[in-house]
């Protein structure tokens, strides 16, 4: 199937795109749309979902995915496909700090189980859960390409490597 929706698929064009999102969010998405040829605006689907997810405090809703579809002239199901395929899109609320702990081979060999145990004890949550104050959530991820510093985790846009329980405490203490 062609990667482009049109002309193969007819898309219900949204007439009031200015009513979608805030002007800032629209400007951010537009900057991505501008990087692709005309009529290929759906190439900006992934960054648009990221922008919208960040705006919404870290997770997507069906309404937001529909709005992205409207904004980029895509059939909604195409956006759902992208948003459910990639693991960085969240479909349930997450904490202010999303702790993504790698448990793949290198990290596991280097003690990610212990890191998980420490995180769970300290935060009182397991994978897929959010602390009651909404500050932290814990997520199991596959290899994030930092095996040289295993075990590792990602919080926000930062990688933290060569983790020990003490280092984890230090990192979490430093977060707002």
């Amino acid at each position, binding site marked *: *199937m062609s990667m482009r929706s049109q002309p193969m698929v007819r898309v219900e064009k949204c007439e009031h795109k200015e009513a979608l999102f805030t002007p800032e969010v629209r400007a951010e998405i537009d900057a991505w749309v501008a990087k692709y040829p005309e009529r290929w605006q759906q190439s900006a689907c992934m960054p648009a979902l990221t922008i919208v997810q960040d705006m919404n405090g870290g997770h997507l809703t069906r309404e937001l995915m529909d709005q992205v579809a409207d904004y980029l002239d895509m059939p909604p199901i195409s956006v759902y496909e992208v948003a459910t395929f990639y693991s960085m899109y969240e479909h349930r609320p997450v904490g202010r700090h999303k702790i993504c702990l790698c448990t793949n081979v290198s990290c596991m060999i280097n003690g990610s189980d212990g890191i998980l145990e420490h995180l769970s004890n300290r935060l009182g949550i397991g994978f897929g859960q959010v602390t009651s104050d909404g500050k932290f959530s814990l997520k199991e991820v596959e290899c994030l390409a930092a095996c040289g510093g295993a075990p590792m985790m990602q919080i926000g846009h930062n990688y933290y490597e060569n983790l020990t329980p003490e280092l984890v405490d230090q990192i979490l203490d430093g977060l707002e």
Partner: protein
Amino acid sequence: MTEDQTFTIEVDGQQLEARPGQMLIEVTDAAGINVPRFCYHKHLSVAANCRMCLVEVEKAPKPLPACATPVMNGMKVFTRSPLAREAQKGTMEFLLINHPLDCPICDQGGECELQDVAMGYGGDISRFTERKRVVRDEDIGSLIATDMTRCIHCTRCVRFGGEIAGLRELGATGRGEHLRIGLYIEHAVASELSGNVIDLCPVGALTAKPSAYQARSWELSEYDGVAPHDGLGSNLHLHVRRNRLMRVVPRENEDVNQTWISDRDRFSYQGLYSDDRLQRPMLRENGKLREADWQEALMAAARALKDASGARIGALISPSATLEEHYLATRLLRALGSNNIDHRLRQGDFRGDAADPALPWLGQRIADFSNNQATLLVGSWLRKDQPMLNHRVRQSQIDGALVMAINPVAYDFNYELDVDIVCIPSAMTKELAGVAAALGVDTLGIEAVPDPAHHGIADSLKSAAQGTVLLGNAATMHPDFSLLRALASGIAAAAGVTLGFVGSGSNDCGAWMAGAVPHRDTGGKAIAPPGLDAAAMLEQPLDLYLTFGVEPEMDVAEPARMAAALGAAQLLAIGSHTSPWLLEHADILLPAAAYAETSGTFVNIEGNAQSFRGVAAPPGETRPGWKILRVLGNLVGLDGFDYAESTEVRDEVLAACADLAPDNRIGDLQDRKPKSAPGEWERVGGVPIYAVDALSRRAHALQLTPDAWGGELRLNTAAAAALDLGEAAAVRVAQGEGSAEFEVRIDDAVPDGCIWLPTAVPGSEALGAAFGPVAVEKA
């Protein structure tokens, strides 16, 4: 190397001719070499995700998928070598990991591609002992049953939605173990072609809901059939068990329906088994209808026909009756001394009869529609009226053609119209005259100043090497049909494109050939003076009406007036179904076999005669329509009504039509005064996709789809405000002498000052023509 050059490849030791750009599987398929596959389909894009078609190619380091491997000169391929076999066996084992092995309780069992390929290419044991995954089912509507745990993710259904239906509804969400095919947000799929995913699905994940768990494939006998609802004549396979039609699937014909059929053609068979089939002849005696035996009923019918004075008899024949039925009815009527016969029951304007060509048709072959460079639809919701023809137009647009429309509603198409003129019905002649003026041809005295849209249409048509102006069903029902047709004819001639008609039933061409029109006899021979057309039979009420396959309150242009005229006269109704109206008004009711129950011929709208046999048993004492007409002919003492087979009738008509070629040349129009005038409110009619005939109206599953028209009326936001509807959800519509109340649905596709209220829907019986002025008020 150009496309026409060929070279030779070797497959399993055989030398095969191949063209550059072809995929390996196309070449092996053409040569009859079986390569197993699930995701590949010749009319869909190549996905290469099932990996079942892996074959060994010399010098390639690993097996390659035949569906995605382009052929190369001198290529050597082995489809059954140990390496290929091993790859196919491995793929099969992986595919079966998550597939439930419960074939005995699966509806697909016995006709399952996975089952067949597993038998042919799989191993005999599974090494998989872990748990299988389970996927929740979605309810995707009344036509398709889902069992998504069985899905093997071939994505044929997903690609079909995007590439053929033109709507992305099904999708593949999630990843890896969590990948699933579904809608994500549960809703009923809204495509008129949706049933094709049932055939595409290689496993039992998507099966036909109306026939679910009713028959096993090995109990069914397969017969050839022809679809009875639109002029395409899509080719069907009818699956019959113990004389009952259990289901319908497409029969491949690249010239007509390719490998698809519309949902209407697939599921309308349900109407055969509705509770209101007419099963025995009935006679009215002292005002009450009673059952009678055939002998008595036929004698009564013959007496009524003989007693009536010839010219005082009128016949209304369904445009979906067979060629044989049209011909025998025509001969019967003319022998009785009447030319009052018509099949154009929904046509809104007969002033152009004198200018009629002898055999109006599509103007082009169906397959040629894919190659058109410009198409102008006039008064046509092609997508719902002739779904498979619309598919061709859509294909032409994907290849770069322009598709334009002048319509009384912004109809929903599965492609974007390049020019979309939506106007109130009474302005349609003016809009079309605008295009005519832009091309500098006669506007029939209609004042028209072409605007940029008109020029755009004119220029697109003119610059197209091949194109068409297509008059749709709404145009045919329009009170100024003759004007629209004359304008369209002028436009087509000036722009050098063809003029086309879509027909209103499955056998319009056959009806013209047989002579089921008041002004032309069998073979297109002109009759002077002509008899009464369908509208004139209303203006000048007759003593006796013969209807064939018609529900007069549904299937005619002006239901209320027609019903009144027929109710007041003597009525001999031959048909497959009863209705409350018929039971109240008909004097003689004769049960005739419906489609699939009778042999016959449909001449499709491209002029192609397709014959079929009767394969299902009609209920009760129902007899084939052509036999009823034959016996009536015998009983009124006509010569030459001694046919033993329907094929004799067919051969006689076709011989009489040997010199009759399809022709769309329109003569000069005498009466050029527009009949339609703007009113305060105008009705926009048409016939919804699942209301076109007795069968589709009774197909329960179709009536549960989003395309079924409930008892509503549609108008736009501004119209609702003008009527001050507020919270009120109903309006009263008065037209002519009738009036009825309707629920309101807001639909901004309807132009200002109009109500969209089709005929043949509940509530419309009391009203008049599909188009025209109406009075509307808040109820």
